């Protein structure tokens, strides 16, 4: 079984995953997102565009070594991303109902879903993202209508929230996520990237950045005042996201579906990207074997506690810088020039 994905499904899948990852990363997964997380999402999307644009040239002209190294980088990032998402799903399930259930039991459905999802292949994941995009819009509309009386636009001020440094730090993190999730899209099929691909990168970044910014802004308008700046536990941050202290509890259902839906699409996209890259690096491996390997590794990482470690937080902070630096080195060695000539 060959793992592959066509351009359009890849763009949809990446778009859904980028929006979910940035929202998740700058709200529930972030210790101190501040009120200006929406601004960080926009800046992050803008920062990622040149790096994503250069990715294509790296894969085309960077030579086999550069290409393999880069695939390895994206593979590691996607695998870690899958593990983080699986851990998020398990935490959410634990918080919402199953707090006394062992983490392995909580992870099991997510792991099975990931394996099933990868073996359906890339186009199915992309098609599912297309359908999810419509459901997402409908659910978001319902959520906004239900919570409309409780929004406080004044909580978006000051625009810079906790200050420039927080905004910049979060923007770099967001850019890192955009750059790694863009991997599904860059290394699709044979790794080539056509003219339309560049436009689609820009469009994907713009759309997913806008969606993430919108969600973060809506979240900021609902979050209780103590949320700003304080270092809170993951459970409390999720609680603040879902209940926010004011809307009736029984109206949470659309929010929960949105939350799980976004996480599952993110998991599918990242997991598939990891499996596809693994197969590209080891072409003799069957797609199902790659899917199994990625599922096992992601589950093991999620169970190990690595997803909540300081080391991972540090790596995420610098993944954008690593990706940009790598592209800059290839460019300095003439790769981009060669590509332009070609």
């Amino acid at each position, binding site marked *: 079984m060959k793992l592959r994905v066509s351009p*359009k*499904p890849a763009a949809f899948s990446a778009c859904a995953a980028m929006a979910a990852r940035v929202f998740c990363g700058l709200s529930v997964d972030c210790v101190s997102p501040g009120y200006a997380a929406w601004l960080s999402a926009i800046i992050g999307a803008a920062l990622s565009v040149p790096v994503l644009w250069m990715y294509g040239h790296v894969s085309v002209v960077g030579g086999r070594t550069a290409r393999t190294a880069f695939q390895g980088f994206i593979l590691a990032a996607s695998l870690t991303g899958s593990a983080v998402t699986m851990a998020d*799903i398990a935490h*959410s*399930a634990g918080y*919402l*109902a*199953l707090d006394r259930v062992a983490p392995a039991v*909580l992870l099991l*459905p*997510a792991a*099975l*879903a990931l394996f*099933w*999802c990868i073996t*359906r*292949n890339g*186009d*199915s*994941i*992309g*098609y*599912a993202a*297309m*359908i*999810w995009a*419509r459901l997402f819009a409908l659910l978001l509309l319902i959520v906004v209508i239900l919570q409309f009386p409780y929004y406080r636009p004044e909580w978006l001020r000051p625009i810079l929230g906790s200050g420039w440094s927080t905004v910049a730090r979060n923007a770099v993190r967001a850019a890192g996520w955009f750059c790694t999730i863009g991997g599904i899209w860059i290394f699709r099929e044979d790794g080539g990237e056509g003219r339309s691909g560049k436009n689609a990168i820009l469009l994907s970044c713009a759309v997913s950045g806008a969606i993430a910014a919108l969600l973060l802004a809506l979240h900021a308008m609902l979050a209780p005042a103590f949320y700003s700046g304080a270092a809170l536990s993951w459970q409390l941050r999720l609680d603040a996201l879902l209940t926010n202290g004011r809307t009736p*509890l*029984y109206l*949470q*259902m659309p929010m*929960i*579906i949105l939350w*799980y*839906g976004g996480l*599952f*699409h993110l998991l*599918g996209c990242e997991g598939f990207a990891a499996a596809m890259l693994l197969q590209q690096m080891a072409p003799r491996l069957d797609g199902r074997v790659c899917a199994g390997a990625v599922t096992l590794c992601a589950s093991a990482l999620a169970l190990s506690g690595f997803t909540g470690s300081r080391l991972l937080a540090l790596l995420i902070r610098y993944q954008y810088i690593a990706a940009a630096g790598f592209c800059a080195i290839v460019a300095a060695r003439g790769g981009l020039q060669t590509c332009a000539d070609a």
Partner: protein
Amino acid sequence: MEQNRDDLARGEIGRDLRDNIARFRRLLYSDINTDTHFRMFEMAGRDVCVVYIDGMADEKKISEFVLRAGAEAGPAQDGPVDAAYLIRRVLQIAQCETENRVKAILDGIASGMAAVLLSGCDDAVLMDIRGYPSRPVNQTTNESVVIGPQEGFVENLRTNITLLRRYVPSPGLIAESMEVGTRVSCRVCLVYLKEAADERIVSELRRRLKCIDAPSVQGIGAIQQLIEDSPWALLPQMLQTERPDRAASFLIDGQIVILAENSPYALAAPITLFHQLHTSDDSFARWQYGTLLRLIRIWGMLISIFLPGLYVSLTDYHMHLIPLSLLGSISEARANVPFPILAEILIMEFSFYLINEAGTRIPKQIGSALGIVGALILGQAAVSASIVSPILVIIVAITGLGNYAVPDYSFSLGLIICRLFVIVLGSLYGLYGICVTAFCMLMGICGMRSVGLPYVAPIAPQERHNPDILLRLPIWLQRRPMFFSKAGRMKPRAKQGGAR
């Protein structure tokens, strides 16, 4: 002995009439099979023998247009008396042809044709004078509509093709006949509209039909299982209909219809998930009503899949998502029920399936009694005995109604299996389990294909389409061709799935 018969059935007939008769007598077991007839007589100065099976061939036609015509025919005047001469000069049958392959003649006789064997000639005449009894065209039984034609397909293939030709009176309507089944063959017809159907899809379906290597094929349901893209999928990827008007609308849209002998159904492909929610009413009613009905069916489908699972998960794990007053009612109603919610809902679900299945098999005369026993007495008794709570009866009843709102029977059975997964996962993991199941189902349907085309197109992948797929927009807006037709842009993935 059996090997010997296979050898006899191979090859071609000889010139010696007695040898040929002996051969066919053995092949048709005429020593023990009293239905086979070998009628010797003289025709145009030659000894001939008509071979047919009693009841399958029309004896009146044999007497009138074969025996009498043979007796009245004089000796040959222009050329030798052979099979071609008989067709040209003597036999007064519209559909007859020369044939020399023993297997083809044997299959023809078995399917109701009559064969004329001639002495001194190595060709036989095969005449289509089938005259077996068949049911007249009647009202549909499973796909009733309020507005629209009422007639349905019957078991006779010829009648079914005629019905289609009546609805689509176009010279471009092609009906390709072929036999499937290696031991007991079944006549199958691939019907399509030349100017609308995509030739690649037609070729693919033709290939799949020809590749069937099952020893026998019993009707359209077996054919569907043998040529579907994903035989392991829960949902069908081809659609069975008993309505000629619906099959005709598929043909006009560029889809292909397969008919089979003895099957009062047509099999349509390629289809999408959304075709499973369409009925003929949608087309005949005004667009506002058609759209409303489709939305109701979509809602019914969602209720059918998710409602019992949601009930289990909300009452077991997420009580904070239930408004307080309703939660109070549920708790009060469940106070005396000794079973956990999962057991309670499974008892009710399986009772419902039991009543449903019994209602399908039971004679019509006592069917209404079963309805009363099942729905009223059993339900009331179960609630009174505190086996189930009243609210659960409501949940299961609404779920059942949702399932019945889905027009396609096979599709609704697939939904029932999905529902069981949702119930079990919902009871184990709450909303998390339901979301996992929904995600996996979404992935599953997104990965499915019908004759190589995506099952959820034109929504995913997005394609420009006739606005009669998800909703039923005004008829004057439905000018764009369907994406699977010859004029559509989407092309099937080559050689996906295939015959088994």
